[in-house]
């Protein structure tokens, strides 16, 4: 297993800079997910690590060795592609065997390795089949098998699940995670799907426009997003953001919301007063619960129900407040009706606060666990 270090990595295509000098260290055995909207440079970064793209500037180290000028095959990495890149004209066994192409092992040993990998992925019965006879999930496993067979020092995944249907994607997520736990291989996984990032990563790297916005464990990013982009990108449904301004009332600093004129005191040290600064108050839909009798001191919003999404395990309620719509959660099995006037309440400790101009978060203490 290996460490991967990116130092001030830059990728330019002509006048456009796709990756703008990123620094990242992936520890041995770590599962790091690069996530961001399309065009954020995450795939390009991965392809530079693989050696499929030239590095314009900066360094890539694998196990301390600078590999900028090393051919892909010399980096001892394996890559799983979005379209699997398994060859339709050869069998599953031969496809997996391509991973051993440069190995000097005797033939019998290669066969044994292929068998072993096939067994660990549940592909034994399919070894003589052609890819056309396999399902999407099976093809994905063949692609992973081809990567595994060589015992690479790191695995690179380029959106490997986006061609699968939702159910299979969930399944493969777990399978890849389980595989990682078993092999303990250093892995870099690229996706645009925050659910994949949240469920699989040891650490998530949020990227946007060629830069890293934030790096952290999934819960860290969820609890303490450093800006509006990450706050909205991580977590589903997206965080509600309500515009307001910093203000003082009755000698206390707080936020006066634009809609409804409510005044709240988020658990954030609003030092320096900064009266009048425009801010965005963030609250996650799962923290904003529909209630008849809000606790004293709770942050509340009142409005009319616009749309109700019944998901079975939970019910999401879209509530119109002034000119804005927020999403909240209906507790238990209660299903409100559109048009109904309701009150949503959140623990002030669950609130986030962002500067509206810079979109950066005001520092926020960790949530106290009850």
């Amino acid at each position, binding site marked *: 297993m290996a460490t991967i270090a990116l130092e001030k990595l830059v990728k330019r295509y002509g006048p456009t800079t796709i990756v703008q000098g990123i620094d990242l260290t992936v520890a041995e055995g770590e599962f790091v997910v690069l996530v961001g909207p399309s065009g954020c440079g995450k795939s390009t970064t991965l392809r530079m690590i693989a050696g*499929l793209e030239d590095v314009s500037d900066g360094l890539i180290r694998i196990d301390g060795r600078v590999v900028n000028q090393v051919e*892909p095959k010399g980096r001892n990495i394996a*890559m799983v*592609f979005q379209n699997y*890149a398994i*060859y339709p*004209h050869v069998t599953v066994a031969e496809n997996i065997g*391509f*991973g051993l*192409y440069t190995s000097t092992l005797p033939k019998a040993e290669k066969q044994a390795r292929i068998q072993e990998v096939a067994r660990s992925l549940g592909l034994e019965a399919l070894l003589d089949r052609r890819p056309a006879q396999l399902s999407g999930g099976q093809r994905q496993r063949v692609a992973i098998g081809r990567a595994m067979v060589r015992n690479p020092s790191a695995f690179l995944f380029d959106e490997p699940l986006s061609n699968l249907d939702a159910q299979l994607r969930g399944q493969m997520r777990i399978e890849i995670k389980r595989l990682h736990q078993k092999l303990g291989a250093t892995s870099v996984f690229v996706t645009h799907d925050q659910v994949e990032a949240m469920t699989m990563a040891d650490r998530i790297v949020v990227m946007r426009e060629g830069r890293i916005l934030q790096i952290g464990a999934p819960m860290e990013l969820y609890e303490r997003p450093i800006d509006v982009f990450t706050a909205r990108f991580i977590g589903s449904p997206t965080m509600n953001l309500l515009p307001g301004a910093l203000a003082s009332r009755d000698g206390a600093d707080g936020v006066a919301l634009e809609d409804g004129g409510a005044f709240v005191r988020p658990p954030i040290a609003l030092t320096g007063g900064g009266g009048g600064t425009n801010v965005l108050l963030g609250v996650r839909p799962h923290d904003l619960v529909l209630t008849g009798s809000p606790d004293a001191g709770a942050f509340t919003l009142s409005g009319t129900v616009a749309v109700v999404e019944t998901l079975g395990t939970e019910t999401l309620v879209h509530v119109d407040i002034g000119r804005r719509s927020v999403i909240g959660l209906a507790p238990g099995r209660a299903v409100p009706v559109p048009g109904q006037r309701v009150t949503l309440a959140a623990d002030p400790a669950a609130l986030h606060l962002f500067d509206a101009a810079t979109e950066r978060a005001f520092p926020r203490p960790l949530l106290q666990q009850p």
Partner: protein
Amino acid sequence: MREAPATAHGTEGKAGRLSDRLTLSTKRVLWAWLFLAVPVVFYGAIRFWPTAEAFWISFTDWNLLRPAQFVGLDNYRRLLADPLFWKVFANTFLYLILGTPVSLVLSFAIAYHLDRVRFLHGFLRALYFLPFLTTAVAMAWVWRYFFQPVPIGPINNLLASLGLPAQPFLRSTVQALPTILVPAVWAGMGFQIIIFLAGLRAIPTSYYEAARIDGLSERAILWRITLPLLKPTLVFLVVFASIGFLRIFDYVYNMNTNDPGGPLDSTKPLVIMIYQTAFKSYDIGYASAQTVVLFLILLVLSLLQLRLMRQPT
């Protein structure tokens, strides 16, 4: 499905109209045949009927002057005993055996490299395609000029200026056939390159990237990935080129107009023999028998293609 038209028509007309009595699927079939009838009739009249006629004429001694008389297999017996036929048969296959591999290897090599060229890619592609759009007769005459002896032919002039012996080219019984193949191969390459390029473009780049990560060399990638995945393209082009070379006519005819197929029948393909038998000797029955033989060769080749295409890639 069957209920739908009944309700649809129930409001507008009485039961018993023809269109009401037909089921939806029958109506669809009728419409389909109505449209298909146009090409079917057309092809029947201008393709299949004359083909059938040719088969019939090949069993007669028709020579345009007296009415055709049935002569059984006489024409075929005569063909088998005709030394010219065997000479021509060998020539035809020589065109095929030399022309097909040479043109395909050349056009693949060009397409393979053109695929990697970004600079002036479209212009180069157009340049290669141009001969395919040009009239064969015009090209044949230009090439014929190239191959003339000193002091007319540029190729021999070049050889002379280099101090090399002049070559007879079209005047040699040995060199004439390969010389005629040069413009024929050149003219067909534009089409083959375009088809190869399309085939190459259809292979996902991730296949090559995965191969590079697995450490396959360029040569291994070509033999183990590119060529196997190009098999359908390759089969199509082999058959297409083969049929073309088996039916070669215009280059042979125009490169040597004073004696088409010469010198001494050394370049004469089957189609020229058929042409001369039919329209120089007016021996239509005999010419038809030759046509039938060519037809059977082409048929076998096409069936072979279908067999090859059906095999899993």
